[in-house]
């Protein structure tokens, strides 16, 4: 993921139409991002299983490859060669499209994520709004999965997912406002560029609200109500098997990657770190995996909330806190 400006200059010097070059670069980059996504998900699922095992006094995957590193490849191969069941009563197209709709927005949302000073696919002016808006389409896929599969557990799960999205979208966006006010830009690279001191120190309330609502948006414990195993068998993906289930898995983990990468960009100083510039993406990844580890730690430790408590937390605690954060930030900046 190189900066495309130098290539564009090269193209204009040689009389190539810019859109051709643009498209071909975009093509290459999308494939690179996709490969990285796939790799990231494989690493994350392996990490999740190992972290869980570590917290539960056991080993985790051990026997497929060295320390089980090939475990996820085996799982993927199996899921790919597994039968895809379309229940008789399911809505044909809604059922088929839902996993794709969960997976695609999460993937496209990664387009603006800057992992180094020049390592960004497309640096939009409204990058922040883009990052908030595009992955949120995924919830439509979840609702479609619930309604399409004509299954009661799935419908209940998707309704819960919608309720959660409705409650946590607002505090999540409001918690970012303080950062935008200080940075004076909604461009992600600009936000990182101005972060000489990490914003987590200037915006502690904002960070906490953002982290909690990100957990809720990505359906992780203690907010994993849409797919609780003890109540709704597997929630919205109860009826899905084989490859389509793989897409749900991908979507879920890419959303986690995107959420924690955004937290790093906004609050943890992005790629900033000691050492030469080529270490920037390394620092970014280290911070990102720290946030992911935190999410996993929370997941394997806490019990889950009940649905009314989830809503209460969103509207009565996080939303006022986020508004308060905006006011405090503004007041300090004005005075």
């Amino acid at each position: 993921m190189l900066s495309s400006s130098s290539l564009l200059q090269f193209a204009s010097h040689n009389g190539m139409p810019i859109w051709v070059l643009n498209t071909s670069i975009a093509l290459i980059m999308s494939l690179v991002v996709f490969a990285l996504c796939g790799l990231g998900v494989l690493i994350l699922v392996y990490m999740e299983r190992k972290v869980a095992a570590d917290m539960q006094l056991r080993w985790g995957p051990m026997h497929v490859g060295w320390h089980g590193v090939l475990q996820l490849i085996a799982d993927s191969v199996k899921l790919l060669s597994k039968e895809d069941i379309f229940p008789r009563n399911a809505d044909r197209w809604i059922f088929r499209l839902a996993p794709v709709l969960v997976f695609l927005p999460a993937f496209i949302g990664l387009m603006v994520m800057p992992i180094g000073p020049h390592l960004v696919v497309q640096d939009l002016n409204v990058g922040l709004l883009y990052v908030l808006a595009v992955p949120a389409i995924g919830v439509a896929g979840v609702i479609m999965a619930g309604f399409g599969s004509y299954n009661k557990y799935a419908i209940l799960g998707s309704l819960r997912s919608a309720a959660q999205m409705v409650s946590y979208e607002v505090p999540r966006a409001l918690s970012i406002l303080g950062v935008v006010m200080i940075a004076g830009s909604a461009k992600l690279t600009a936000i990182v560029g101005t972060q000489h001191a990490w914003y987590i120190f200037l915006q502690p309330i904002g960070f906490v609200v953002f982290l909690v609502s990100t957990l809720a948006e990505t359906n992780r414990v203690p907010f994993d109500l849409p797919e609780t195993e003890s109540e709704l068998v597997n929630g919205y993906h109860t009826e899905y098997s084989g490859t389509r289930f793989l897409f749900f898995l991908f979507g879920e983990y890419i959303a986690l990657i995107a959420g924690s990468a955004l937290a790093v960009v906004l609050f943890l100083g992005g790629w900033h770190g000691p050492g030469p510039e080529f270490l920037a993406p390394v620092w970014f990844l280290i911070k990102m995996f720290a946030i992911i580890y935190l999410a996993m730690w929370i997941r394997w430790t806490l019990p889950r909330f009940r649905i009314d408590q989830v809503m209460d937390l969103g509207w009565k605690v996080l939303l006022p806190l986020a508004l308060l954060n905006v006011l405090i930030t503004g007041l300090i900046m004005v005075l």
Partner: protein
Amino acid sequence: MGIVKEQMLDNGIMLTKAGDLINWGRKNSLWWMGFGLACCAIDTIMMVNSARFDADRFGILLRNTPRQSDLMLVAGTVTHKMAPMIKQLYEQMPDPKYVIALGSCAINGGPFYYDSYNVVKGVDKVIPVDVYVPGCPPRPEAVMHGIEKLKEKIMARGQIELLKSK
């Protein structure tokens, strides 16, 4: 399976390689359906998933819906009232699917073979069974051994399945 199968048949090596890869995936990622019927469920299913025996080492995960599971462990006594449900759950698993009958009750009714009007004399009267693990209840080590045997069976059977399937 149409086109790929023909090409694979033309090229024996490719068939072996592709079939081996798929079988390798299948045998190393047996997700089982968490489904306890009676005593065996406590000691085997829960125990094998607990820290001491840890089925996760072999890539075995617990799924709750039959749609995402490959392996059904019938752990416990199958009663006549329960048998239709077991059949339904088995049917609802996606192909290829495997069944392990755990414990004497699931194998042939066990101690309830005589004198019990409500017990099915073995789950293989209802659904096909791949591996039988005896014991009342079997030790967790025995369950693991049964799973190893199932893996051998998958590796042996899968080749034929790949050739045969239309």
